[in-house]
Every structure is written in structure tokens, then in C-alpha cells.
């Protein structure tokens, strides 16, 4: 099993509902966020191109954060989800430095926190909070190893990209373009 997410940059309107849903679901402290929306404007007026991306931890297959963690707190969980075990994290910051996406932050309680792909919801057969709440239905989540999953089908159908593939991290968050 390999969990992955795809975000349709053509359908995303940048409403930030996914951000709020995540903050609510996980009690993310005020002033922090595990996911965020990037708006990229390219070109010169009047020929402009806009891309909206809802970004988060990429749950990389070759995660630098898991590699750098000195205690093993950062680890691969079922389906390739990258998680941090709170009581094993010493807060050294190595994983934050190692992430090319700056997807991690230090929780006010001291440990390092980030997107979990809502592993608790996924374990119950539900969609991650951000995916479930998206008003334009631009997000897809599922198992890449299952050819009949929604995500496998959409990735087979649509042109897509990942962020900074040259960093060699093999991200599991895809952007449909």
C-alpha cells in the first residue's frame, strides 16, 4: 500500500478551506499550520497564468527527515505515511532542516509536528480532513498500488508534477496540471 494525494491545480480556487479543516481536525495551535495554499502568478499582464496549490508534507518515499532523525521518532508508517512519534522526538530540529518543502514546524509543546495524511481518519476508511472538506472537490486521496483507486485513475488520466523532484525525495503529493 502506498498512500498518495493529488491536487487539481486547475480546479483549486485557493479558498484555504483545507487549511482550516486541518487546523480544526488536529487542534493545530493558533498561528501554526500543517498545510497551506500557494498562489503562483506567472507572466506579464495581460498574459498571466495562475496556479493554486494546496501544499503539505509530501510523505516522500525517500524522506530526508526520516534519514536525519537521530532517535527514530520520524518514521514510515503503514502505506508510506511519514509520522513523528511525539515521545521519541527530542526537538533537535534536524528534520526541519532536512525538509526541502519546509513542511515541519516545532509545536509549542516542543516536539516537531506536521501533516499526518490524517492517518487516524484514513485507518477508519475515511478521507483526510482537507480532502473531505474541499468545496471544489479538487483533491484526491488513495492507494497508488490499487489500480482502481480514485488517485490511480486520475494520475493515469491527467498530466501531473511533484515539487522539487530534483531533491530526490520522491514525493507522494501530486499536482495535476
Amino acid at each position, binding site marked *: 500500500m502506498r498512500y498518495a494525494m493529488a491536487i487539481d491545480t486547475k480546479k483549486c480556487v485557493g479558498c484555504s478551506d483545507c487549511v482550516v479543516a486541518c487546523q480544526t481536525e488536529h487542534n493545530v495551535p493558533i498561528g501554526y499550520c500543517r498545510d497551506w*495554499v500557494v498562489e503562483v502568478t506567472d507572466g506579464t499582464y495581460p498574459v498571466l497564468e495562475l496556479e493554486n496549490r494546496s501544499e503539505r508534507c509530501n510523505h516522500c518515499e525517500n524522506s530526508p527527515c526520516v534519514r536525519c532523525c*537521530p*532517535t527514530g521518532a520520524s518514521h514510515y508508517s503503514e502505506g508510506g505515511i511519514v509520522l513523528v512519534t511525539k515521545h521519541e522526538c527530542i526537538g*533537535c530540529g534536524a528534520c526541519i*532542516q532536512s525538509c526541502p518543502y519546509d513542511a515541519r514546524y516545532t509545536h509549542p509543546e516542543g516536539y516537531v509536528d506536521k501533516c499526518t495524511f490524517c492517518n487516524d481518519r484514513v485507518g477508519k476508511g475515511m478521507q483526510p480532513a482537507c480532502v473531505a472538506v474541499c468545496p471544489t472537490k479538487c483533491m484526491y486521496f488513495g492507494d497508488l498500488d490499487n489500480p482502481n483507486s480514485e488517485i490511480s485513475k486520475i494520475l493515469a488520466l491527467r498530466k501531473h508534477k511533484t515539487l*522539487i523532484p530534483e531533491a530526490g525525495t520522491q514525493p507522494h503529493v501530486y499536482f495535476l496540471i
Partner: protein
Amino acid sequence: MKEEIIVSGRMNPNIDPVLHVWHWEIPTYLFLGGLAAGIMFFAGLFYIQGKENKFRSAVKFAPFLVPVALGLGLFALFLDLTHKWYFWQLYTTIKLESPMSWGAWVLMIVTPLSIIWSLTYTQELFDHWKMNYPKIYKRTKWVEKVIFKYKLIRNFISGAAQQRKTMAWVMIFMAIILGIYTGILLSAFNARPLWNTSILGPLFLVSGLSTGAAIIMWLSKDSVERKYFSRIDLMLIGIELFLIIHMFMGFMASTQVQIDTAQMFLGGEFTLTFWVFVVFMGLVLPGILEFLEFKGYHLPVFIPAFLILFGGAMLRIIMVEAGQASRYLY
């Protein structure tokens, strides 16, 4: 033109707008770790060469600073942790892929080793103080009494003193690992292009050896030893300059992210601090002073020694700071 903004207002503390997770603690530790590695390397090396009485400061007295430096460095590392009371988790696992795990275990070996090495020379240190610095001796006499009060400790010290040769070999080996590790710690992060160069390992090792030699030079009252370490330092300065030039050559010949990184030092925000504090004041100037010393002009030894220590500290502060400002384009 391309404009990229985070519309959802991500402002995670210490992440946005510029990554600033590591503050003064990490460069402090890197400096003290390098210094400790330098002192240990020379102590081990000259002991094995049988020069313990020729280079007394290097083999016998400077190593007393190692446990102090490591202790302070470890304390700085501890302060840096944000989930402090879980620090023992470092010692529940060995992760070969994580330089920090390596470092934690290396320190676990090096710190007691340096304490034992120093203990075997404690008697000589106090004798030395008694003869030359009676004031210091008067104030520290009680330490001597405490240490040599118990038979168990006396036996342990004399037993350890017989194993000095083995300890010296281990010290040389561990000093090299410790010195390189202070650089590898940073170079393992491929997300930060400035750090992601394998030259950082040798660069920090050489810089650590150089600061170690500077301390020995400063401590020594013997002109032969001073001259010898001044010459070693001159050579290390040469190697360090060579490695710095190579680092920038590597960056300039690499990908755009690394070219941008080099630009931070070649006209960007770190240009002045790096070239003035690290290269000129920390390397070129002490190099010139040592060369003059070599040619027969006598200068107060603390000037080049202080400059080298200053340069070593600045190198680490700037590398840690600039590394966090360097990033991938996306």
C-alpha cells in the same frame, strides 16, 4: 515574471519567512567540538611520537580544556533541544544514516575518554602549578586533595596512565571523526544547498585542528613548542583557504540553487561578514603574523591565536546562519 505567495498566510514560527530553527547554540557546539577534536588530535599524535616532554602543553595541559569544551558544547546542544527532557531517546537507538545519532554516540565515547586522559596528568598539572603558579595552586589545592584522597581513584588513575598509548590512538581516531562530524552534520541536509557539500567535513576538521593548535600555542610558555605549533597552524590555514576556494568553485560549477548560494557570499548578504571576519581576520591576517614570526619578527602570540579562534567561531556562525537562508527554488 513569476510571483509566488502563500495565500493561506502560513507563518509558522522559525520557518517563515526565513528558516531560523538553529540559533547560537549549534555554532557554539560546532566550534567547541572542533576545538576539542583539535586538541585531542595533537595530544594523541605527539604522545605516540614520544614527544610528551617536548610538547608538554599539547600532550599534558591543553587536554584539560577538552572536557570543559565538550561539557559546554553539550550543554549548548541541550539548550537547543525544544523537547529537552526526551534527550535520552538519543541513546536508545543507533541510526547509521543520521549524522546526529553518530555524533551523540561519538560524544558518549570522547567525553569520558578526555576526562580519563586529563586525570592521568592531574598530578603533573598540580606540580606544574606548584612550581610556576603558586597563586593558582594555593586556590586549587583542595581539588588535588579530593582527587587523590581515595585509593580507588588513585589506582584507577595509575592504571589508566599505563594505557596511555591505546588511549592516544583512540583519541586520534575519535578526534578525526568528531572533527569531520561537525561538518557532516550540516552537509547531510540536501534541502539546504549551502550545507550540501561534502567539503564541509574536511573544512570543519581542518578548522577545528587549527583552533586546537591555536589554543596550544597560546597556552604554551615554551618557545620551541610555540614555534612548532605556529608552523602547524600556518599549514592548516593554507589548507583551509584552499578548501574554501574549492567550496566556492564547486558551488559555481553546480546547479542554480548552489550558484544562488554562492552568490550570498559573492555580493550577497553574507559577503562582508564572511570575507572580512572569516577569511581576512580569521585566516589571512593570522597567517601573515605567523609567517612574520617564522621569519624572525617577534609578536605577542595571543594575537594570531585569538584571531584564529575568532575566525573559527565566525566560520561556524556564518555557515549555520547562511545555510538556513539558502534553499531550493520552487
